[in-house]
């Protein structure tokens, strides 16, 4: 067992203070300790993007981040993303475009897409493809996911 460490951070806009083992991942903190299961465990080594969250506004793989390193930072998970206007636009566009099949990769894509939209990096198909290269989907073949992100970037859910 590793030593417990006190950390304080903001999670989806709410200040949190708790103790975590020093070797725990941020993904385990979110899912197992805080019950936020929207963030998925896919590969556990940063290859699939299913655990993508925002840390201080940048997208990261929660499985690769030590939970102790959340101290003093601002985390936003998919639950926080869909509570905002961009997240709602993305969710509607994913549904309208049929970009969700089994759904396991969807939270990671939603968070990464919100990061791209927030940075103005969803200006065309090539840019979107580059932006989601860290997210794997085994169902859709990406076409409809790219369409959904492009639709959301244009400001609507019906293109």
């Amino acid at each position: 067992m590793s030593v417990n460490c006190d950390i304080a951070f903001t999670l989806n806009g709410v200040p949190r203070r708790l103790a975590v083992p020093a070797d725990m991942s941020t993904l385990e903190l979110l899912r197992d300790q805080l019950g936020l299961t929207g963030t998925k465990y896919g590969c556990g080594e940063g290859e699939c993007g299913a655990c993508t969250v925002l840390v201080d506004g940048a997208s990261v793989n929660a499985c690769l981040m030590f939970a102790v390193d959340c101290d003093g930072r601002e985390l936003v998970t998919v639950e926080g993303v869909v509570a905002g206007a961009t997240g709602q636009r993305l969710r509607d566009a994913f549904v309208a475009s049929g970009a969700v099949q089994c759904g396991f990769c969807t939270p990671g894509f939603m968070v990464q897409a919100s990061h791209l939209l927030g940075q103005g990096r969803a200006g065309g198909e090539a840019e979107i493809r580059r932006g989601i290269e860290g997210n794997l989907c085994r169902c859709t073949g990406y076409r409809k996911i790219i369409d959904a992100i492009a639709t959301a970037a244009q400001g609507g859910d019906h293109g």
Partner: protein
Amino acid sequence: MAEVAAVLDGIARYVVPRTLDEALGVLAAGGVSILAGGTDLMPQARAGRVRLQPVLINIRRLPELTGIERAGGGIRIGALVTITALRDSALVRERLHLLWQACDHFASDQIRNVATVGGNLCNASPAGDTLIPLLALGASAVLAATGGTRRVPLGEFFTGPGRSCRRPEELLVAVEVPEPPAGFAGVFCKHGTRPALDISTISLAVGARRDGTVLRDVRIACGAVAPTPIRALQAEAVVEGRAADAATIAAAAQAALADIHPISDVRASDWYRREMVRNLLQRALSHVGQL
């Protein structure tokens, strides 16, 4: 006994130093794992490839390890600078374009946002993306310890797969890159099964300066073809001071085969790696000759 073993298997102490001196003091006491971005440390620890030490030191809050700036004829890049920050830097894009290209091809957005150049260097993978252009550009690692600071050229820094000459009590604080001569241009390319998130089967950084019809200051570095990233010195010598014509390019590609020592592994056979170096080096040299 079970309790002792449990303590040895876990992290007994977590430290977040606020100054470099404080960090070096912790390192001097020994038994420390260094955490920066964590994108290599976490999966390696989980897979059992790296054993976490009793003390975990998080160096992310050290101001001395940040920033990209011109300093004394070179460009100093703090060890904590992320790949995204390198990619967003106008100075890197304009003056260290070989490095910029490698950062643009590095892993994925999520990993670029967190992974640091210092972590990439200390992980010392023969395929590490930033290592190849930094080696070609003649960069040096700046290593600090309580006893003082030393500079090690990257050609001497890497000692084997996953190994460097950094001593356990030393911290990589920065990498210093001499400014390339005016007109220096280059190409970084890597080959794998997909463009993103793939460990290179081979990678190349090729740079030179056009002087009339000939190339000078020729630099060729190769990844994933030897136990460490290497300079292809024999290939460089073939091209230096010559025009990048078909005969010179073919001779350089042939000479590079004597510079490299590839192995067969899960990603490719040694034969395939030689053929990829021969072909991609010809393509890269031809491209550099036209830049």
